[in-house]
């Protein structure tokens, strides 16, 4: 069982840059053919300063740290036992290539079901831009298969 003392644990903040090449790679990997996401002229014509980061991309840049699974290590959870249970995004502004975004995450809750066969980790992340304006809030439910 995960030690409940970790509820409230704050993870070290980190900052990541949104890169054009990476956005094009993400578009390819997700079958995105809308030129707004790959062609800068189309993005600008749509009112963006550059290629926009698509809706789920902010989740990805939270992994741009030396050990993206550091939280699991800290909680003593094996990577092979986790499943993604739920994901929520609340958006405040669209960010684009060239923007730098900062991630501040905390372990909001840990609980179990089925007599501990399944444990749930709730991770909440606030994403802000270089001017400390809110970009998005992310909430992840991570399921740990103990049985």
């Amino acid at each position: 069982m995960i030690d409940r003392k970790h509820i409230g644990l704050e993870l070290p903040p980190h900052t990541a840059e949104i890169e054009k090449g990476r956005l094009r790679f993400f578009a390819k990997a997700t079958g995105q053919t809308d030129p707004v996401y790959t062609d800068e002229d189309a993005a600008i014509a749509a009112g963006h300063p550059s290629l926009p980061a698509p809706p789920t991309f902010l989740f990805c840049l939270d992994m741009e740290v030396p050990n993206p699974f550091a939280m699991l290590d800290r909680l003593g959870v094996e990577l092979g036992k986790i499943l993604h249970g739920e994901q929520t995004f609340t958006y405040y502004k669209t960010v684009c290539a060239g923007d730098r975004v900062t991630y501040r995450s905390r372990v909001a809750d840990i609980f179990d079901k089925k007599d501990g066969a399944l444990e749930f980790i709730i991770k909440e992340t606030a994403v802000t831009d270089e001017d400390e304006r809110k970009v998005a809030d992310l909430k992840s439910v991570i399921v740990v298969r103990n049985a």
Partner: protein
Amino acid sequence: MTPLTFDTVAVGDELPELVTEPISRTTLALYAGASGDHNPIHIDIDFAKTHGMPDVFAHGMLSMAYLARLLTNWVPQEQIKTYHVRFAAITQVGERIRCTGKVVEKLEQDGEKRVRLDIQAAGDNGEIKLAGDAVIALL
């Protein structure tokens, strides 16, 4: 195409559905690289087997990205206010993902006219993989 407006959208309206190509091992390798999610459970069959899985399986966030395409095909992305899914079932290699959505509520929120959508992603046999909702601002 006429832009969607709050007044022209009705509860029950369905979004144009989106069906992906079958998810291959290449799809998973590309998504691992592009997303930065290098969890070997999605790309390394040896790792998957030692963790009780018969094979690698698709990243839930890959289907959430597909479902986001359903939304951004319907409205510009800056109109998406919230986007939530529950991952209900694992997606296996070879499956196509069918993304659908419909308007379930019209509301005023934070001084904006908005609609709530029920959205889902299903596999080849109709099994629900992701189910959730999104709130979209409309003029």
